């Protein structure tokens, strides 16, 4: 019984989940109807929890890609800029087309935006794997240059689009569920399948844990890095399109601003170490939900906007402290301290081979 208790406490997702529950509880106290989910006249789900799932979708989508990048000991700072580029690309194509409301036009716009992001992601992959530039520097290049590229695409304007199919991507519903949420769920499921049903996940972890041992075992890290940075950029573009659609405008300067930090935070809260290696997509999901709930809480509790960042930081500090090795070690000590009766736990046979 006690063992189960400690097993639960020691689980890497325990404290993020506790934080999630606490945040939701705070909201419930402040907003009595927080947990209620209603169906409106058009048959769509409405409620604060649904908002969290919808608004958190872009962060989650990016965090999924970021998880894989971080597992290889890398990091991708350029995802925010890639959001802006993808949004700008899609919007400018829709605006220059004769019929912005045509589904085909929007489809082309989205595909071109995704393709462009993929190319830029492969560029990141090239810098990291072929040229051997440190990931933080390699992606910093696109982080700074990316908003410039977006600016070139929008020609310095904020592109406002009036396109029903495009607007659907960010704020539409499918069977009553927000489309963005569905996209996030599909992305999470697909990436989980892609990495866990093939050997991709294991090889990524292997490279992240011990690159030289992996090389000597014949693992081609280069290909994996291209793939991982490409995928991360692709997912950033998906998130960027959802964000842009939500705002019905492409803003080269502000779309996806600082989203890379939220995504990295979600990954770390989810228990994936920045040192690379073992990763958990479930953890990333929990991390992204914590962050979005936190943002919601800021509004419901009525924390003044000036203090928002400080509040966010305080929560993050609390969770990371609880997850830290030092805390876990202290917990372990506390756990093993009362050791009244346990004597016969000895290997039955000396470790000797004949």
């Amino acid at each position: 019984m006690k063992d189960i208790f400690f097993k639960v406490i020691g689980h890497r997702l325990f404290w993020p989940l506790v934080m999630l529950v606490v945040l939701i509880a705070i909201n419930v106290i402040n907003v009595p109807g927080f947990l209620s989910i209603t169906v409106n006249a058009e048959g769509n789900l409405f409620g604060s929890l649904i908002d969290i799932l919808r608004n958190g979708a872009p962060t989650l989508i990016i965090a999924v890609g970021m998880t894989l990048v971080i597992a290889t000991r890398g990091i991708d700072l350029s995802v925010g800029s890639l959001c802006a580029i993808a949004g700008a690309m899609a919007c400018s194509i829709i605006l220059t087309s004769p019929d912005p409301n045509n589904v085909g036009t929007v489809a082309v716009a989205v595909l071109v935006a995704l393709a462009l992001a993929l190319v830029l992601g492969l560029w990141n992959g090239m810098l990291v794997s072929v040229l051997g530039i440190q990931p933080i520097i390699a992606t910093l290049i696109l982080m700074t240059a990316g908003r410039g590229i977006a600016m070139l695409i929008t020609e310095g304007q904020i592109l406002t689009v009036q396109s029903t199919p495009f607007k659907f991507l960010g704020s539409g519903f499918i069977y009553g569920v927000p489309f963005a949420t569905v996209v996030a769920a599909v992305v999470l499921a697909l990436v989980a399948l892609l990495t866990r049903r093939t050997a991709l996940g294991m090889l990524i972890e292997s490279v992240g844990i011990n690159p030289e041992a992996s090389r000597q075992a014949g693992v081609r890290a280069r290909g994996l890095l291209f793939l991982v940075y490409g995928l991360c950029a692709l997912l950033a573009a998906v998130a960027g399109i959802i964000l842009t659609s939500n705002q019905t405008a492409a803003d080269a300067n502000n779309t996806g601003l600082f989203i890379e930090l939220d995504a990295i935070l979600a990954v770390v809260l989810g228990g994936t170490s920045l040192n690379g290696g073992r990763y958990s997509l479930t953890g990333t999901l929990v991390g992204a939900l914590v962050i979005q709930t936190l943002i919601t809480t800021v509004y419901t509790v009525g924390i003044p906007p000036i203090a928002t960042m400080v509040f966010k930081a305080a929560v993050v500090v609390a969770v990371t402290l609880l997850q830290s090795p030092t805390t876990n070690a202290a917990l372990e000590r506390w756990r093993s301290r009362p050791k009244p009766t346990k004597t016969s736990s000895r290997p039955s046979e000396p470790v000797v081979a004949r």
Partner: protein
Amino acid sequence: MPDSANPLAPTEAVTTAPVVEMTDISITFPGVKALDGVDFRMFPGEVHSLMGENGAGKSTLIKALTGVYSIDSGEIRLGGESVVFINPAQAQAAGISTVYQEVNLLGNLTVAENVMLGREPRRLGGIDWRAMRRRAKDVLEGLHLHIDPNSLLNSHSLAVQQLVAIARAIDIQAKVLILDEPTSSLDTEEVAELFRVIRSLKERGVAILFVSHFLDQVYEISDRLTVLRNGQLVGEYLTPELLRIDLVQAMIGKELTALEDLGSRVHATEKDEEADAKTVTFLSAKGVTRKGSIAPIDIQVDAGEVVGLAGLLGSGRTELARLIGGVDRLDGGQLKVNGKVLKLRTPRQAIKHQIAYSSENRRAEGIVDDLSVRDNIILALQADRGWFRPIPRKRQDELAASYIEALNIKTPNADALVRNLSGGNQQKVLLARWLAVAPRLLILDEPTRGIDVGAKAEIQKLVYSLAENGLSVLFISAELEEVLRLSNRIVVLRDRRKVADLVNDGLSVDDLLAVIAEGAADSEIKTGAAS
């Protein structure tokens, strides 16, 4: 080579008071009693070897003494006074200095900074760099180590780094010096140098705790032995009074037949139909070289042949193995496998051509410690197939289970993380990884370093039976007995050149040592250019 004439027998030591006295020490980890009522004492001016297989409790005892672990029960007395160390810094302040097996220094700092770290001489509120360098230089020269104190530690070999660690420990003016596997990465000359230093420290009255897997070294340097097994004390002995065979039996607690068996088997097959006409050359290298690493070398390995590479540390053993294994690229020369010329650029290509290289650096280049035993075993096979063709889970389990059984890997299950296994079992997991890709040539670089006697014998046996099944093995070990026991042929390297290619028909360690030392004298010993 047992040296029965030990000049260092401590006759009077028993009468002096011990500087360290540990009584009835117990430490329990979750599920395991790591130490169970162990007594241990150290006398000033004496070298005390702590012996035991992996998992016997040697490291735990050392960590208890140095304040890394807190003890559950028992008492530690230092110079007669009862002490409790909460952390290693306290133990160090009390005069207990430790040099760990894995060099615990900062590679990106200079040698001088490493020697003086935490005790930098100060001047005007800053660090007195000149005094620091001077003092570091003095200590290093006391060890006959003539290196620039301003050079980065990383730029030196592991052996030199080890000596720097010892220099650091000496400078602290320790009363007790703990050397945990200090010789595992040193060559013979460096070991002799280290022993000279140890003897001079003895004369100064320092009590030295010495841990090594090399029995020769233990017998050469230590005055007293304490043997642990499974966390319990087996006994304390005076070295000259304990026969080697008794020591080994005390350590493993079983009759030691494994190694002896093997010895006879080697020679049995040796004589069989070894020289039959249809030996097939699997690998032949002509003038393979790499700048700054190894001079042009010819080497040939036949199918089913075990070729030993002998030579001192830094003689080019590993460098040659890495070239053949595709880990480093050739600058010149030609590599032929089955008569076809190969251009290996990566280990991956070597594996494709059925050449597997198992690195000497198990932790840094071998195991992937946060992955499971299963994943580690299938890693090379899976990498060869590519990520999009996963090995079915059922097949993975079969592979893991069969290798865990065949190699007798001690692990709770295939899902256990490799980091939680002992060194010997990690090495077996690595062997399983390479065997899983079904190589024709297996290059084993120090496969038995730092692992216990039992696992060592098992690995040697395995090499033997692999060769009997037609696998070629290139076997590297610093232990000449081991090379002699296993190899059909021995290539001797010195100063990054090949100095001899010997057929192993009853060579002795002394023969081999002579070749390693003299090199040119190879014509006097039977040489053979591999039938």
